[in-house]
Structures are given as C-alpha cells and as structure tokens.
C-alpha cells in the first residue's frame, strides 16, 4: 500500500491552496484566448477557488503540519517564507470564501457592463486573492510586502476597470496614486525595521528587539528614534490599506466610483488581509515590551477615531455605496479594537479580530450582492431608490435587514458574536473605554442603516417587482445562511480562531 503522506512533500502541501489559485489563474488566461463562451469560464474560475478552499482542509490535515502545530512550533517552508499554522489556514479560508462569493455575485454585472474585459475581471480577482493569500501566510516581512503589492497593484486596475466611466477612472487613479504613496511609506518602515534588527523575519525581529540582536544589543530594549519612525511608517502604510482614520480619505471615492462588485471585494478582502498582516507584524514582530504599550495605544486611538468618524459621516450620506464606504471605515475601527487589545491580551485580541473579519466578510458581501443587483438593474445607488423594496423583492429586503442587524451587532447574527468577542478582548486588556465607545457607536450606526430599512419597509413604491438574478440570490442566501449558522454553530470557529491566536507569538 502506498502511503500518500510519505510521497507528498509537505512543502507543496502547505502551499497547495496558493498553487491551485495560481494554476486556475493561468488556465483561465489560456482558455480566455480560445473560448468565446465567457460565462462558462466564470464557472472554471469559481471551481478553482472552491477547490483551493477545499485544499486548505487537506493541507491542514497533513500529519507533519498537524503534529507541528500541536507541538506549538508550526513548520515553515520555502526558506522560511511560508508558515503552515492555523492562522494561515483560517485567513486563507476566509479570503478564498470572499473571492468565491464575489465571483458568484458579479456574474450578471460583468456580463452586462464589462463586455470588453470579461475574463480580465476574474483574472485580476484571482491575482488579488493570490497576493492576499501570500500576505497572510508568512512570518517574513518580504513575503508580506510582496503579497501586499501583488494585491494592491491588481486592485488599482480593478477599481478603474470600467474604462468608459469617468468615476471608475477617477477611482482607479486615486486609488493608485494614494496607494502607491502608502506602499512606499510601508516599505520605508520595513527597511528601517530591517536596519535596526538586521533581519526580515518577524520572530527574529522580536528576539532582536528584546535585546538579543546585534544592533539593539548595544542600546538595549529601548525606543530608539529609528524604531519609532519605522513603527509609525508601518502604521501609516497598513492604516491606509484598512482605511483607518486618518488614512481613510481615499475610501469613499474609490468605493463609490469602482464597479459595485469590485467595491464588494474591496470592502471585505484587502481589509481582512491587511488586518491579518497587521497582527502578524505587530504582535509577532513588535509584540515586545516596551513597544507593545506604544503601538497598542496608537491603534486604540485610531480605532476610536475610525469608528466615530466613520459612523458620524455615514449618517450624512445619501448614496448607498458611499454610505457603506463610511460604514466600512467604522467597521475597520471596530476591528482595530481587537488589534489594540491583541498587544496586551494576545489570545483574546487575535481571535476576536479573526472572528470579526470572517463575520464582517460574510455580512458585507451579502449586502453588496443586493447593492450590485440594484446597480445593474437600473443604476440605483441612492438610498431613495430602495423605496418599497420589501414589496418589490422580499428576499432582498429581509436579507438586507438581517445583514444590517449583523453589522450593528444585534443577535442572533454572527456580527453580534464578533462584536461580543471584541468587547471581551477590550475589557480583558483594560480598554473598557474603547468597549463603551464601541457600544455607543453601534447605536449611532443604527441611524443610517435605519434609513435604508425605513424606505424599504415603511415607504411605498410604484416600481414593478424585481426579478431576482440567480448568482446574486445564491450569494444572498449563502450569506444569510452564514450569518445565522455561524452564530448557532460558532463553537468550532471560535476554537479555530483561538488556536490560531495561540501560535502567533
């Protein structure tokens, strides 16, 4: 009898999801040349992503990898560039899930508005996903940065993919210019960190900062100006990616101008991946006293500013995509609460961030599925266009209601559990004020979600019923199921996030 586990090299098993996505990308590019029937190619893309998702289960159940995780020393491969720990698997699963839902919900939109660049859309989605997957799968600053760049550069193209629409062009250009600056700042921060510690590997950076490295050894564990600058640059760079205040100014314009399925993708994917990278870098690399106190506090302030400003400005919006942009800024603020807490109580903090990223992605993609449909049906992007939706399409209206409820954080939805874990992390790390502020902000956010709910349910409309689209209805139903079932059967996911968190440091 052949024993597969002996034949298969774990270095390939560890990157199996990445390999499958890469292969899918190449296959789709090749097939795109010959096939005229593009819609069936979309299924190939989706199939590849789902296969990659399933392969995570295969990688995670590899004996050597599992034994190493259980022993508390996860294996690293490819010259220590890729790490096979629970964190990697969890985030890859979430990111691939996001990609799958976006591919599912974008079918009709792309067929209608992107005739000239039909498959390019999906190819770029795959490229962004691949970049994000590398970003979360490594403990090395270089891999993290390369992954981030791959995903960012592809994102710029994605934002401007509606070539004839000036708003989309503006979004693309704006995203590119500001994003490039942010990337440069981030890279500069990384180089400073490298200069001080002499390494790009995060665990080694942590050891060096604790007093074990060649450069720091002379000065001892202290906040040298170089380190402070490096840390600050890193925060600015990552803060841009997650659209945290005050690096959020690009988000509303890009979210509004980009095609709606792309906005859906931006709101969930890059944000989640960047959050994961922040955790890797800050908890894994800079999680050493006395640095921890400093960056925790700064992230806490950024969290407070993001959620308050995001929610207050969202109250003023009439365009629903713009409103959701500010809502996502506020949501980033909530997640940053977990990031701040992870500096002091890493287990609670990290697992709360991971859980919330998942909860937020499931919920937000459901919302954007409906938004995409409204956009492609009649260009309805104003809140007033949602009048009487409860009569025009009850599924969409009730689903939106439940998704909003989840974003506010009211049970029985997964958003509530996510908020709950953030509350717990904040309380455990002594950031009670942040928890209270978050509670107040949740109530403020009711204001703008309520406006949509009100026009949907309480206002009448003469418009005819909406014919549902298969891809979008499927996404909405999947999200609905996710929002409810992830609450009722939360236990395995909570345990998974807790295990992922335990190994990060």
């Amino acid at each position: 009898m052949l024993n597969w586990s002996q034949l298969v090299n774990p270095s390939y098993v560890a990157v199996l999801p990445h390999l499958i996505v890469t292969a899918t990308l190449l296959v789709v590019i090749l097939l795109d040349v010959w096939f005229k029937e593009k819609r069936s190619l979309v299924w190939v893309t989706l199939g590849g992503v789902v296969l990659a998702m399933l392969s995570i289960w295969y990688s995670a159940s590899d004996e050597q990898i599992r034994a190493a995780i259980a022993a508390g020393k996860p294996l690293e491969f490819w010259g220590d560039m890729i790490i096979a720990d629970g964190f990697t698997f969890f985030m890859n699963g979430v990111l691939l899930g996001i990609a799958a839902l976006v591919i599912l919900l974008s079918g009709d939109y792309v067929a209608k508005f992107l005739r000239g660049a039909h498959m390019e859309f999906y190819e770029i989605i795959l490229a962004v996903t691949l970049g994000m997957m590398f970003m979360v799968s490594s403990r090395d600053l270089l891999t993290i940065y390369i992954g981030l760049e791959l995903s960012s550069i592809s994102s710029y193209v994605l934002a401007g993919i509606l070539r004839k629409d000036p708003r989309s062009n503006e979004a693309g250009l704006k995203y590119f210019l500001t994003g490039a600056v942010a990337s440069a700042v981030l890279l500069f921060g990384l180089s400073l960190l490298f200069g001080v510690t002499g390494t790009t590997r995060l665990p080694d950076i942590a050891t060096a900062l604790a007093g074990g490295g060649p450069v720091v050894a002379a000065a001892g564990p202290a906040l040298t100006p170089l380190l402070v600058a490096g840390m600050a640059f890193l925060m600015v760079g990552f803060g841009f990616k997650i659209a945290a205040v005050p690096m959020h100014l690009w988000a509303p314009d890009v979210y509004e101008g980009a095609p709606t399925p792309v906005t859906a993708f931006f709101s969930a994917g890059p944000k989640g991946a960047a959050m994961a990278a922040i955790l890797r870098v800050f908890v894994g690399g800079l999680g050493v006293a006395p640095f921890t106190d400093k960056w925790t506090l700064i992230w806490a302030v950024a969290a407070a500013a993001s959620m308050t400003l995001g929610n207050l400005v969202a109250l003023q919006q009439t365009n629903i995509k713009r409103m959701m942009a500010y809502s996502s800024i506020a949501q980033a603020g909530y997640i940053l609460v977990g990031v701040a807490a992870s500096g002091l109580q890493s287990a609670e903090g990290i697992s709360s961030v991971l859980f919330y990223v998942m909860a937020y992605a499931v919920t937000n993609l459901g919302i954007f599925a409906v938004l995409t449909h409204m956009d492609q049906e009649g260009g309805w992007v104003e809140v007033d266009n949602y009048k009487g939706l409860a009569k025009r399409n009850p599924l969409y209206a009730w689903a939106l209601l439940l998704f909003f409820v989840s974003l506010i954080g009211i049970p029985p939805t997964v958003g509530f559990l996510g908020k709950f874990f953030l509350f717990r992390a904040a309380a455990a790390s002594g950031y009670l004020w942040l928890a209270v502020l978050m509670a107040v902000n949740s109530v403020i956010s009711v204001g703008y979600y309520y406006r949509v709910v009100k026009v949907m349910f309480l206002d009448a409309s003469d418009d005819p019923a909406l014919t549902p689209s298969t891809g979008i209805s499927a996404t909405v139903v999947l999200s609905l199921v996710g929002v409810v079932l992830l609450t009722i059967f939360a236990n395995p996911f909570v345990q998974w996030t807790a295990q992922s968190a335990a190994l990060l440091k």
Partner: protein
Amino acid sequence: MLSLIIFVPLVFALVMLFVPKTQERLLYWLAGIGTLIPFVLALVLAAQWPTAEVSTAPYAQGMRFVTHVPWIDAIGVHYTLGVDGFGFTMILLSTLLFPLAVLASYKYIKDRVKDYLILLLILATGTNGVFATLDFMLFYVFWEIVLLPMYFLIGIWGGERREYAAIKFFLYTLIGSTIMLVGAIYLYVVTGVGTFNLLQMAAATAKLPVTGLTTFAFFALLVGFAVKVPMFPFHTWLPDAHVEAPTPISMLLAGILLKLGSYAMVRISHPMLPQVAARYADLVFVFGVIGIVYAALAAMAQKDFKKQVAYSSVNHMGFFIMALAAASKLAPQSPELAQVALQGGYFVTIAHGLISPLFFFAVGMFYERTHTRDLTKLGGMFLTIPVVSFATAFVAFANLGLPGLAGFIGEFISLTGSYPAFGLWVLVAGAGMVITAAWHLLTMRNVLLGEAKPEYRGLADITLKEKIIFAPLAVLIVLFGVYPRPIMELLKASVEVLTQVMGLGGM
C-alpha cells in the same frame, strides 16, 4: 419542555412563511395554535411544579426543569434553561397573554396579516426565552430578538406617528442593552470565572469590592434593564410607543415586555452586584418614587385615554423599583424584612401584567367603536355600551388598587415592606397612589358617566371575541386579589434565595 415553550412559536412562524398571504384564517389558526401550545405546556409544567426535581448543580442551583447543553464551549457559553418562581410566573403570564393577543388581532389587523403574525410569534420566542434562560449570552440573544419584531409591529401597524415611536423605542432599548453587554463582559473578565452562567457569575461577582468599575458595571446593567421597565428617567419612549402601537401590541408591551426589565433586575443586576445595589439603594429608591408620583401626575394631565394608561404603567412599575431598592437595602441587616418588600414588589409586576393588558384592551374597545381616544369627546358610555363600560370600570378599579383585586395586594405589601428601609419617605409613594386613584375616578366620570352622547348612539356592545379575551384576565385579577397565596408560594423560595444573596453583598 422549556425549549418547546420557547421554540414552538418560532417553528410555527417558519411554517407560516410558506402559507400564501391570502389564507388569513389559516394564518390566524396557525398563530393561535402556535401560541396556545406553549401555554398548555406551561400549565403542564405548573402541574408538575411541586414534584419537579430542584437542581443542585452549580449552574442551576434551585432551578427546575433544567436543560444544560454546551453552545460555545471555548468561552464558557451554554444553552442553559431553568426556572424558579421569578421566571416561571413570568412564563405563565407571557404564554397566557400571547394567545389573547393573537385573538385580539383577529379582524383588527387588516393589513399584511401574514407578516404581522410571523413577527408576533418571533416576539413570543424572544420573551419566553428571556424568562427561561440562565446564561447571559443566551439571555442577551433573546433580549435582542424581542427588539426587531417590536420595532416592526409598532412601525408598520401603529398609529400616525408610528415611525417616530418605533425608532425611539428601538434606540432607547438598544443603547441600554449594548451598555449592559459591556458591563456584563467586564464582570466576566474581571472575575475570571470563565463562564457566562448567571448563577456562577453571580457567585463570583457578589464578592467584588465596591469600586468605580463595579459601580459602572452595576449601572450599566441596571440602566439596560431600567429602560425596559421603564424606570424614571428612562421612561419617555413608553408613552409614545404605547399610544402608537396597535391594541394587541400595547397589551403585550405592557403585559410582558416591561416585565423583561423587572425580571432581569432580580435575575441579573441585583444578584450579581448586591453590594453596589445596597450602596446605591437610596438613589434607586428616589428614582422609583419620582416615577410613581411623576407618572401619576402626568397621567392626570393627559387628554388621551391610552396615554393615561401608558403613564400608569410607569407608575405601577415604580412600586417594583421602590420595593427592590428597599429589599437591597434591608437584606444585609434583616433578610426577613427584605423578603416582604421583594415579594410585594414582584407581585406588583405580576398583577400589572394581568391588569394593564386588560386596560389597554378596554381602551381599544372604545377606540374601535368611537374612533377616538380623546377624553373630552367621550362620555355617557354607560348608557350606550353598558357591558363594555362595566368591564372598563372593573379594570380601572383594579388598576387604581382597589382592595380585593390583584393590584392592591402588591402595592400595599410594597409600601409596608419599604417602610423599614426608607421610613416615612414611602408616604410620597403613597401620595402617588392617591393621585392615581383620583385620575382614574376623574376619567371614569368623563368617559362612563354623564349624558349619553348622540353621536355614539347605536354602537354595538361587547362581542364574543372581546368576552373571551376579557374573561380569563378578569377572573385571575379577582382570584389573586382575594387569594394571592399560589403566587406567593411560587415566589417564596426564590425570594428567600435572592434576599440571602443580597444579604451577603452588604457584608
């Protein structure tokens, strides 16, 4: 069994999703059965009550009909159900009122019947769940499940200013409950008990010293519940919500939803932090008494019949707040005295749960016939619709606290029970009782007595449907007015446990 009581309405709601909305009779039947089954089950439990096993497990000490299944193990959240006297009386009340509310809706709600009934059933699941659960997370889930259906029930089927009233109700409760969540999580973290079980948490938190943070936690919990009760000064949503809500929803709002708050106080905030409760008992007392007097005066000043009744809810629940404050102050010195106050206070909530729905229903009977709630326009009703008027007079007397009816007993015991704690200050509350009695008499004179108004001639008198709704509640009001022992017996053990816990806190 408790699980069935909670989830049968939800299952019926799911079934009703697939019934076409033109089948209104079928929908009503389904909703009626879906709310009657829990009531029957609750009666079965009541019959089993004396012989039921009393749990000794730490997660359900002193509870009956316990279910304990892990839910989110990783953080110590369990699906734990179980009831004592506090919870079980409320479950009986709630399961009784829901079928009556469904019946009261019949032919009264004309628009979007299907949506209405489904929301009503979800509401039933939420309220029954709150009264049966012993785990904070589960409690919070049910607590919030109540919120959304109620928002829509007021916001879609309410009166003219329904949207305003609905969102006001929603926001008030949501602010209260999110802050309450933070407070509870703080307690969970600071004690390190590793479980959200209410009893196990309380065992740990009751030993905490009174510091700024535990005070914060106590008031976070208390305010979350006080909004629902509603306790002065968090009561302002209530008159709006009541006036705009359709009659069956007003009945439920007054009968059950306010009790969520009072129940939560005796189950969560006071057992968990009795030391803080004792320290701030005077403050809570002051708010309770202000509520009593202020609400009585405000009710007197209203021109709207329904608003009067709404304010009387604030007034009655004030007695509960007062008695609870007295109990938390007395418990450290003399548990026996505290028991009297607590028993009286909780009896008030039960009596109010029977009387006020009936009163709202009576107002609804007038409104359906005359299409006005304006007190200046009504008059001489004894001569036009005598039976309805008699029924209204009966319930008004019950509400003002006439001896022999259920309302009197609770308020009287609350007053006498609070006297040892606050001395003659309780007379202020007594004055509130007098004012309440006064405006009831004035209103009755306005509405019922006097010359028959010509525009109301020929109105139909009480219908069979109205009799069916009226009878059970009226019988219970009389029964518990002359023979309150069954309720007192049910409450006794729970009251003893709670006063014991509260007594520990003062040391």
